């Protein structure tokens, strides 16, 4: 029941917003904040009790109620270590996006927050759903509010960007639907039961060729959202044109639903096909890492630059997911969280800058440090996080990914590591011409307000915490990631051993601890 509330609360708040707006538009900001905080408290209390409620695996909470019995679909939610990390990230970035649009959004405030909460509801549903129909339901639910956020409150070229975003992701969603339906019938013809239950669909017997085709439907959909290399073209446009909160949600959460889908569904549902496909997926990932980084370097639009860094960073996530080792998968989850926070914060900062100087063109900026030292300092922190400086969260994620992939694809690691060098170059390119150097135009640039600096300070504290002490996150995810790992189900069935207690996994975790605490640099 508690999990249904996590979904219902933001949805309810979204509707309340529309009603409240008749009296006071600004009240909707507080309603939205309140709803997200209440949700955060609910999740925290679930986490605090931290008991395992399921017979199999490790689940903090599960719920199940009948929905469409004729189809075999039910309202089945479940929260394990992976889901809870994603949900907390969603709520934190949700709160950040409400706060960062406090002064940016002044028109149609209620409708803005309606859409913001709508997209957050969809994302929460995606992270919690354990029924494939329910998952597809929430997957498509995210789309329309996000479209509105870009198309109504976006910048100059918003309509084009919103439409491109919508058509790309909807085409992916349709492929996902086809994949789900195909899996549904394959399962029914093999076992005689029509079901969309995630747990029952795991281990559906099918021929290699069919498995590969259905897996490709799922993979294409998630790869568009991620976005993986040839399918990424919607992302720079959508990011650039979206309002700040839209960019935060887009980069921090929406892209992560693609990664989550890959981890939760592609590996477990199609173990052998996914393992077979891993080589291609990893090549795509490495191309994405380099391509995104190089293109980021070439941008003159500050927001577009940050957008391309996402392509590069999400390439690392894809690499971690398909590496086939637990440490790489752990690193991928870590990278998801840290990229969400660091890129989210960068988008917030760029948004604040744009709100003040009304441009994103880097050629018009320069020497801004002297005008707004607090803002510049914050940008420095997150730019460094983005380029993977040790001590900040992204480093832990990227390092764990490279470490894990090295066992299986050493050549790719060498190439991917080049991405880190380019990352350093584009990271410095954010800083050097914009904030350092001589003043190009004497902008009237007020520094961060109390609201803005406290938001940024919180996010900076989070990224530092994840950088120096990521163990709590690893502990949470470690309990759930074992069975989700690509290639794991095959080895599990052979060895009949729990991956969590296997010496290899333990050694992996120990290594992370050592690396982070500096004993094993």
């Amino acid at each position: 029941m508690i999990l249904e509330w996590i979904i219902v609360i933001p949805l309810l708040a979204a509707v309340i917003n529309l009603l409240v707006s008749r009296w006071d538009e600004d009240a909707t900001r507080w309603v939205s904040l309140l709803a997200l905080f209440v949700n955060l408290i609910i999740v925290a209390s679930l986490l605090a009790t931290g008991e395992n409620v399921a017979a199999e695996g490790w689940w903090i909470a599960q719920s199940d109620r009948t929905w469409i019995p004729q189809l075999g679909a039910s309202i089945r939610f479940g929260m394990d270590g992976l889901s809870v990390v994603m949900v907390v990230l969603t709520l934190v970035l949700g709160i950040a996006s409400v706060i960062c649009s406090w002064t940016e959004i002044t028109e149609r405030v209620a409708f803005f927050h309606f859409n913001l909460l709508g997209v957050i509801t969809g994302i929460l549903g995606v992270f919690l759903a354990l029924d494939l129909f329910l998952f597809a339901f929430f997957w498509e639910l995210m789309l329309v509010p996000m479209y509105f956020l870009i198309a109504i409150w976006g910048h100059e070229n918003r309509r084009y960007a919103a439409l491109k975003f919508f058509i790309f992701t909807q085409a992916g969603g349709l492929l996902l639907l086809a994949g789900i339906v195909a899996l549904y019938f394959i399962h029914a013809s093999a076992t005689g039961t029509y079901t969309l239950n995630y747990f029952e669909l795991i281990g559906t017997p099918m021929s290699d060729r069919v498995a590969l085709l259905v897996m490709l439907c799922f993979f294409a959909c998630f790869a568009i959202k991620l976005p993986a290399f040839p399918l990424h073209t919607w992302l720079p446009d959508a990011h650039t044109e979206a309002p700040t909160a839209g960019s935060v949600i887009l980069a921090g959460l929406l892209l992560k639903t693609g990664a989550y889908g890959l981890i939760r569904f592609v590996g477990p549902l199609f173990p052998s096909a996914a393992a077979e496909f891993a080589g291609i997926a990893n090549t795509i990932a490495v191309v994405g890492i380099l391509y995104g980084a190089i293109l980021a370097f070439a941008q003159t639009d500050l927001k577009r630059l940050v957008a391309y860094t996402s392509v590069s960073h999400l390439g690392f996530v894809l690499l971690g997911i398909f590496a086939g080792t637990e440490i790489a998968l752990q690193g991928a989850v870590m990278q998801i969280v840290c990229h969400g926070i660091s890129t989210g914060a960068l988008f917030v900062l760029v948004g604040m800058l744009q709100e003040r100087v009304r441009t994103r063109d880097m050629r018009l900026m320069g020497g801004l440090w002297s005008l707004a030292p607090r803002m510049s300092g914050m940008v420095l922190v997150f730019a460094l996080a983005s380029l993977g400086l040790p001590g900040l969260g992204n480093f832990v994620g990227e390092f764990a990914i490279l470490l894990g992939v090295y066992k299986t694809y050493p050549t790719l690691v060498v190439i991917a590591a080049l991405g880190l060098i380019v990352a350093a170059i584009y990271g410095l390119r954010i800083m050097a011409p914009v904030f350092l150097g001589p003043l190009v135009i004497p902008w009237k640039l007020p520094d961060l307000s109390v609201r803005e600096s406290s938001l940024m300070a919180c996010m900076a504290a989070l990224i530092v915490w994840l950088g120096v002490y990521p163990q709590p996150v690893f502990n949470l995810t470690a309990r759930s990631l074992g069975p989700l790992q690509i290639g794991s189900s095959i080895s599990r069935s052979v060895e009949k051993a729990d991956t969590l207690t296997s010496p290899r996994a333990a050694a992996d975790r120990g290594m992370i601890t050592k690396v982070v605490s500096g004993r094993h640099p």
Partner: protein
Amino acid sequence: MSSSEIIAVLPLIILFVALVLVMLVIAWRRHHGLTATLTAAVLAGSFACMIAVEDRLPQKVGSLLIVDGYAAFFVCLVLAAAFAVVLLSYPYLQSRNGRHEEYYLLLLIATLGASILVASAHFASFFLGLEILGVSLYALIGYRGGLNGVEAAMKYLVLAAISSAFLLFGMALVYAQAGSLEFAKISERVSGAGITMLLASGLLITGIGFKLAVAPFHMWTPDVYEGAPATVTAFIASVSKGAVFALLFRYFALIDLHAAPTMLTAFSILAALSMIVGNLLALLQTNVKRMLAYSSVAHLGYLLVAFVASGPLRPVAVGYYLAAYFITIVGAFGVIAALSRQGRDVETAAELTGLAWSKPWHAAVLTAMLLSLAGIPLTAGFVGKFYLIAAGIGSDLWTLVLCLLAASAIGLYYYIRVILALFAQPDQEVGPVSAEPSYLSGSVLIGLTFALVFIGVYPAPLIAVIQATASRLMG
């Protein structure tokens, strides 16, 4: 005629008696409100009666009609849609000059025709129902008068007459082969695969294709949709097409469609063509009524995918999709009707621009309806689309399903374009729409939206109803 037969057709008899009654009331006293109320009450009464007699079904009525669960489901759907159209028509017509009582009479006749159509078990009753429906529609389409109205009515008249000719020729061939016009006897005596039967089926499909406006027989749709009053368009798009589709299903359930691969191929081609042509042509439209016309071509194409499919999901897919489509299309044209100004429908994209800020409720309803047509969750369109895909993949119709996926990705573009216009900054030159608010049409639209979201979020009850009634025939 036995008493149980009379009870079974009571809903139709009610419509028929009420027709005479409404005519007499109009002769006695011309009053718009009175006529509209009476019509709505009759439709509601007939609906209640249909539900009351449901447990006595199935019942054959002579050799002409059969009232079974399937017929009951579609009669209820037709009556509900007609009821909504009547309630939407009252404020729509009230804002215009002139006398409007006959409009309701024609609407009742058309509803009766559609009800006969879905309950027919004989080519005679089929043709009778179709012509009753068609003839009243000619008058309804031209009801607004003006060049557009007359053009639309003429176009519909000519094409409907041609399609009737095709149908009659097809029926004659079937009769020559089987020696009977009764569906059940035809299916006993002949198989669907013979050359004469194939020719007959081809002619029947051509005739029905015109009525359903599937490509390549769709040319009349945009002009008729544009020229007819918005409420009548809602009626044509829902009741008229739905009833013909229901009959098509019944006929080809008896004449085993899957025994004749040629027929399956023909229907598959029609489906693919409709989906692609409908969506591509809809892309080019700036008039919302014309856009919805082409989108309805595409949606009939989607429905044909389920029609070609086999398996347990097929009947539910068709029943659910039609129910969802009825709600959606009546709702969409209902908004256009509710916004119409003196004598003119609000239909161009420019007039709808910025509607969300001047008339938020209307814009919200129209958005919900368009999202349902695009198949976005929380609306019935999503579940409907899922069922169509499931029915298609369940019978290995991969080519058609891929067509459906591609077509609905294209379709998104124009639905979203209209939605975007609704939420854009209002056009200063055209100015915002200034229709007078009507609580009647407002509450109908809210009710339709509620129904749309309800069956979209919690479809189990409706699916159970479809399984208990309609799917017995289709199986």
